[in-house]
């Protein structure tokens, strides 16, 4: 290893040579000392305005056009101008090459922090975590987005802006229910996906013959009435991926509408791992930047002043307000993630008796990075917390569990605190807060009345008495009905099957004639 004693930079100013030196220094530590395995990096320097642009299109460098992004942009711009909101120091994109955006205003220290954090921490996580491997296609995403953008623009040209907008509105409303939660038979290949769509369109155009329209179709076939089980099996029911179901079975959608649903579904799927690994992802990145920059300082490549500046930013990032603090808004994923990573390091290198009881597999093994790399690769937030949250950390955060049952008149019960009796319950409850199965309402397509009025039947399985909000639900169902083009009903039922509420929506004409 060639350690250079020379400083990477002095003061706050940087130029592109400085950035290159910082990257090289970080990479050396990341690869040789931490053993990280990353996608090739691409670092892009952008302005505040460009950062705002990126915000409004969910951080992606290119995206199809839709008014809702404009709304987010207007909203964010207004709060940014008023000083209500600071901008992120960076945005990083799960793609290969891994693109990190750096703001031009950052000082040299901040750029070092951000490069270590995004270009090595997040990057390693993206490349190695099983969820990202399973659900996202880092090589293809940028090409796919480019295709999506072109395709949507093309549809607007052909079918009118309004029709496309209605379809996208509806698809966006169902986006959180356009996700496959369980791995299917084949993994996602976005490049092939894009080619396939192009080929299909070309084929349709070449095979088009207007004469077919005039061919008499003969008397309608008297379809045998399928029995319920057979019908449900053929439709792949129950189906929780509503967008997938619509794309495949909605009776009167145009091919381009199906393709748009498919695009929205793929994009939702692409972001699915991120929502499940917020704590781990940020914890990993924060831990990595902390290790890299501390090491740079040890090597004498960072002045004490710059290191102090780093420590200040770092401390702000991992600050966790307590529950009665006005600044409190849930657990800070940076704070929780970073604390857990450091705690694991402690358990691995310097365990106490309690840790040996709780974590016999890793306590005292001494190979911090080996253990962490294994965790980063094979866990998501829920499983990570439920297995690696130590009693010591629960005491450190002084965690407690509240059970709020509206039926209980007397008040809210403190169910568990950070003591011997409470550790396991605390840990289980905290892990559940990060379980996607509990975060999104569980809504499924249960049946279609094919013989009758083609009504689409959905069921929301109510968990712990939390029902859907009425106004929102009506509007989403309206969108759903517009795509399905027949009536749609939604039943809310609890685990015992008792129906709590029922919604029905009738389609408007817009989507059908569009």
């Amino acid at each position: 290893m060639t350690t250079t004693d020379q400083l990477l930079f002095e003061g706050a100013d940087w130029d592109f040579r400085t950035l290159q030196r910082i990257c090289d220094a970080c990479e050396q530590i990341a690869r040789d000392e931490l053993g990280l395995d990353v996608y090739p990096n691409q670092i892009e320097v952008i302005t505040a305005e460009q950062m705002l642009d990126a915000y409004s299109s969910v951080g992606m460098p290119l995206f199809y056009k839709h008014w809702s992004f404009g709304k987010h942009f207007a909203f964010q711009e207004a709060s940014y101008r008023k000083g209500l909101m600071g901008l992120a120091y960076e945005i990083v994109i799960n793609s290969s090459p891994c693109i990190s955006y750096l703001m031009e205003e950052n000082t040299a220290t901040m750029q070092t922090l951000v490069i270590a954090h995004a270009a090595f921490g997040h990057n390693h996580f993206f490349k190695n975590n099983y969820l990202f491997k399973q659900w996202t296609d880092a090589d293809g995403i940028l090409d796919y987005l480019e295709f999506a953008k072109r395709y949507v623009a093309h549809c607007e040209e052909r079918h009118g802006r309004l029709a496309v907008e209605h379809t996208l509105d509806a698809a966006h409303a169902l986006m959180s229910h356009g996700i496959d939660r369980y791995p299917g038979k084949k993994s996602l290949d976005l490049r092939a996906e894009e080619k396939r769509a192009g080929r299909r369109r070309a084929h349709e155009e070449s095979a088009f013959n207007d004469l077919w329209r005039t061919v008499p179709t003969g008397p309608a076939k008297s379809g045998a009435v399928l029995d319920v089980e057979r019908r449900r099996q053929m439709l792949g029911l129950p189906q929780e991926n509503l967008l997938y179901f619509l794309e495949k079975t909605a009776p009167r959608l145009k091919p381009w509408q199906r393709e748009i649903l498919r695009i929205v579904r793929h994009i939702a799927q692409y972001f699915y791992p991120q929502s499940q690994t917020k704590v781990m992802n940020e914890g990993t990145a924060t831990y990595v930047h902390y290790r890299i920059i501390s090491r740079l300082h040890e090597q004498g490549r960072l002045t004490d002043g710059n290191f102090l500046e780093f420590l200040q930013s770092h401390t702000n990032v991992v600050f966790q307000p307590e529950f009665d603090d006005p600044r409190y808004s849930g657990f800070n994923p940076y704070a929780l993630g970073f604390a857990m990573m450091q705690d694991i390091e402690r358990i691995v290198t310097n365990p106490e008796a309690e840790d040996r009881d709780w974590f016999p597999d890793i306590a005292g093994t001494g190979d911090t990075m080996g253990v962490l790399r294994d965790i980063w690769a094979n866990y998501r937030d829920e499983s990570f917390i439920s297995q690696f949250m130590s009693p010591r950390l629960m005491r450190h955060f002084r965690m407690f569990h509240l059970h709020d049952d509206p039926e209980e008149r007397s008040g809210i019960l403190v169910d568990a605190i950070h003591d011997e009796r409470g550790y396991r319950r605390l840990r289980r409850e905290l892990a559940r807060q990060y379980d996607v199965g509990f975060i999104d309402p569980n809504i499924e397509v249960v049946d279609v009345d094919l013989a009758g009025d083609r009504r689409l039947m959905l069921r929301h399985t109510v968990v712990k008495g939390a029902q859907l909000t009425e106004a929102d639900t009506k509007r989403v169902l309206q969108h759903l009905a517009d795509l399905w083009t027949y009536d749609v009903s939604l039943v809310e039922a609890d685990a015992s099957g008792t129906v709590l509420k029922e919604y029905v929506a009738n389609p408007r004409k817009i989507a059908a004639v569009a």
Partner: protein
Amino acid sequence: MAIHIVDRRLNPGSKSLENRQRFLRRAKALVQGAVKKSSQSRDIKDVLEGGEVSVPIDGMDEPRFRREGGTRDMVLPGNKKFVEGDILPRPNQSGGKGRGAGEGDSEDTFRFVLSRDEFVDLFLDDLELPDLAKRKLAEVESEGIRRAGYTTSGSPANISVSRTVSRALARRVALRRPRREVLEALEAELLDCSEERRAELMAEIEALKAKMRRIPFIDPIDIRYRRFETVPKPVAQAVMFCLMDVSGSMTEHMKDLAKRFYMLLYVFLKRRYRHVEIVFIRHTDRAEEVDEQTFFYGPASGGTLVSSALQAMHDIVRSRFRPADWNIYAAQASDGDNSYSDGEVASRLLTDNILPVTQFFAYLEVGQENGLSYEMPNSALWTLYEGLRANGAPLSMRKVNERSEIFPVFHDLFQRRGQQERTGS
């Protein structure tokens, strides 16, 4: 492993512009309402500034399936005194504490900043100029000159040196003109050399020199001139006459109302015509053309003769603005006083000379603050114009008392045709 560092700062910004426009288009009705509401409380100058408007969020929301209520379990940090089994009193509002992060987007109005153009566009969107037909191809703007490549002839001032030299160079290379260095080398060799070599060299030098003479350094055919083209650009032009009574009976408040109206009219015309001129005519019992400052703030006193102003306008039109070339708009503001004997003259001037040449003539009667227009008897001028209108003269007239009425009245006057016939109040 190579790390790419890319500087994106120079990339075109405002990638979100199109999304923003889509959003505005979608929210048009809502934004328009908000713009009008916010413009009522503004000064006219500020109308041009754009600025922040609040739009109710509900028309623009993006619905999702969401849940609420039910039994809730949460793990919180920062326990200080609770032990297992404690019962905490419920906060007054049920569900007062935030659940997870990121679910708190429940702003019920939505504030954002419109640019100046967006604001004015939305503000004036449903308005239309009456009688826009007369677009005269009059004034040719001098800025219509533009570069248009190169030419072989032209004035020496327009010689394009770089183009000329590069063509000359190409020609010299193509015709193999001897380079001066070659010649100099031969001449240097000539200074000390043997006799037979000398003759050889002399001949060679002569040949080269002859060739150089035949192939000049710069030939007239090399010369290129920058070519300019004049692009005649016809513009429709408009002139706006502001007539105002400044006699003693006009209070500051009335002048303020009038000013607001004029400024709106100006903004509006400015959007339609590239070239708008304004003529300010103020009058007491005599009229004069003044500059803007004097028009609004200059002291004046005297009686009231409306015909003097009309006469002045007529004279100015005749001398400076040929009706064939100009779209003429006039707006008159007055408290309605006029000396009785003047009515006859004024109405003749209007019907015979002014109305036939103007696109639009608006009369704005400004009243006292808190004054109720319908309680007051019609003023002399109002009665006069009312009579003219009844005879079919294209006059628009409105009464205004309050600042907040200016915008509605203005909108009313320029309402897009077909929606509503222009009628008096």
